[in-house]
C-alpha cells in the first residue's frame, strides 16, 4: 500500500511540476507581449533589426535542409500513395492522401523539428550565454526590458519563419515530390494537380496556420525560457539547451496531436458518427 501511495505521490509531483512549467512558459508569452506594448523607448527599428536577423537565420538559412527534407518526404509519399492507391483503384484519392499526410501532419512536424534542431538550440544557448555573461542583467540595469528586447523579436521572428518554412515545405514536397518520382509512374501532372486542388479545403488552411504559428511560438518561447533560466555559470548552458530541445519537441508534438485529435473529433461529430 505504501509503495502504491509513493507512486501516486511521484505521479502527482510529475504532473504538478509540468503544469507549473507550462504556466510559467505561458506567463512569459504574456509578459513579453506586455513589455513590448509598454516599452515606449524601443523603436520599430530595433524590433525589425532583430526580427530580420531571426527570419534570416531561422528561415532563409534553413532552406537547403528543408528543401532536401521536403523533396525526399514528398517523393516517398507520392510513390507510396500512388502505388498503394492504384492497387485498390483509388488513384484519384492521391490529392486527399497527400494533403492529409503532408500538409496537415508531416509538414508541420518536420518543419518544427528542423527549426528546433537549428534555431531553437541556437536561441537557447545564445540567451543562456547572455545570462551567464550578465548581459541580461546589464540590459535591465540600463532600463531595457529583456522580454521586449530579447524575447519578443525572437519569438515573433520565429513564428514568421516557421510559417514561411512550412509553406515552402508543402510546395516543394507536393510539386518536387511529383517531379522527382516522375520516371517511376505515369500519372499526368494535370490529373495530379487537379486531385490536389480538389482536396484542399479551408480546414487545411486553418490547420496549417494553427499548427505552424503555435509551433513557432512554442519553440522560441521554450528556448528563450530555458536560456533565461541559467543562473550564473556557463556550464549550465549546454544543460539548458538540451532541456530546451527536449521540452520543445514534447510540447510541439503534443500540440500537433491535440489539434489533429480535435479536428477529427469535430469531423466525426459533423458526420453524425459521435
Amino acid at each position, binding site marked *: 500500500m505504501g509503495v502504491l501511495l509513493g507512486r501516486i505521490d511521484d505521479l502527482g509531483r510529475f504532473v504538478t511540476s509540468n503544469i507549473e512549467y507550462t504556466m510559467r512558459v505561458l506567463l512569459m508569452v504574456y509578459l513579453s507581449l506586455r513589455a513590448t506594448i*509598454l516599452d515606449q523607448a*524601443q523603436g520599430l527599428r530595433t524590433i525589425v533589426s532583430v526580427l530580420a536577423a531571426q527570419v534570416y537565420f531561422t528561415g532563409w538559412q534553413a532552406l537547403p535542409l528543408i528543401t532536401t527534407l521536403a523533396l525526399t518526404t514528398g517523393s516517398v509519399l507520392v510513390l507510396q500513395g500512388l502505388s498503394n492507391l492504384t492497387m485498390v483503384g483509388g488513384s484519384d484519392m492521391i490529392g486527399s492522401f497527400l494533403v492529409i499526410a503532408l500538409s496537415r501532419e508531416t509538414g508541420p512536424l518536420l518543419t518544427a523539428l528542423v527549426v528546433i534542431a537549428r534555431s531553437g538550440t541556437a536561441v537557447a544557448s545564445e540567451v543562456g550565454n*547572455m545570462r551567464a*555573461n*550578465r548581459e541580461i*542583467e*546589464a540590459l535591465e*540595469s540600463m*532600463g531595457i526590458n529583456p522580454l521586449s528586447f530579447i524575447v519578443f523579436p525572437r519569438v515573433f521572428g520565429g513564428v514568421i519563419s516557421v510559417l514561411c518554412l512550412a509553406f515552402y515545405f508543402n510546395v516543394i514536397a507536393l510539386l518536387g515530390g511529383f517531379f522527382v518520382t516522375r520516371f517511376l509512374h505515369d500519372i499526368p501532372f494535370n490529373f495530379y494537380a487537379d486531385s490536389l486542388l480538389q482536396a484542399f479545403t479551408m480546414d487545411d488552411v486553418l490547420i496549417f496556420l494553427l499548427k505552424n504559428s503555435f509551433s513557432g511560438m512554442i519553440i522560441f518561447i521554450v528556448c528563450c525560457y530555458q536560456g533565461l533560466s541559467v543562473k550564473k555559470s556557463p556550464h549550465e548552458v549546454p544543460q539548458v539547451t538540451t532541456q530546451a530541445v527536449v521540452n520543445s519537441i514534447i510540447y510541439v508534438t503534443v500540440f500537433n496531436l491535440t489539434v489533429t485529435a480535435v479536428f477529427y473529433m469535430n469531423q466525426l461529430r459533423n458526420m453524425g458518427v459521435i
Partner: protein
Amino acid sequence: MNAAQFPRIESLRFEGVSFKHENHDPTLQNCDFEFPTGRVVWFKSPEGAGKSTLLQIMAGLLLPDRGAFYMNDKNVIDMSFEEFLPYRLQIGFTFDYGGLINNRSIEDNLLLPLLYHKIVPEGDAHARVRSLVERFEIKKFANERPAHVPGRVRKLAVLLRGLVTHPQVLLLDDPSVGLGEGTQNAFVDVLNEMRAQGHLKHIFISSYDERFMSLMSHDIVHLDGGLLYHQPGEEAAPRAVGQ
C-alpha cells in the same frame, strides 16, 4: 525620455530588508538603514558577505525576500519594470565582471543606454561617448567587440557605460580590479569632474582596494552580520588632477 521626467533622488532607505542566496548565510537580515547621500560611500565587509548583492538590490536588479526599499519615500520594490524605469535611468550600475553586450562594439555598448532611451540627441550621444573614449585612449578598440579587446578595456567600458547617462546614483562594484593605477586615477578625475557639474550625486562603491578608495573623500558603510553600519567621513589624500 528627457531630463525633466526624471525624479530627483534625495534619499535611499531600507526598511526591514532581508535577503538570502540559496545555501548561503543571509546577506541582509531585517535591515533598517538610511543610506548617506550626496557623497561617496564605501561598502566594506568580509569577503563574500554580500556587497555585490547589496549593490544589485540598490540597482533594482535583485528583489529582497522581505522588506521595503524607499527612494524619496516611494517603495520601489512594489513597482513594475515600467514604473521603476524613471528611477532606474538615474542609477548607473557597473559590474565587477562581464556585463558588456557581446554582439555590439565597445562604442555601441556605450551608446546603447543613451540612444535606446533617447536621453540626448543622437549627435550629442556620439560626442559624449567619443570624448570619453578619447580621454581614456581606447579609440582604437571602439569598433571592436568585447571578445576582441583586452580585459582592461572591457572593464573600463563597463565603468564608462555606468556613468555615460550622467545618473544621480552611481553603483560601482569592484571598479579598480583590472585597471592600472593611471586609469584608476583618470577615472576618479572623471567622477570628480562630473560631481562638480552636478551629476553622480550619490556614489556607492564596493571595493577592497584601499589605494583606489584613498583617491576620494568617502564615508564607510560596513556590512556585517546582515546589517549595515555607517561610519562617517574620511578625507582623501591630496592629489593633483591627472596624477
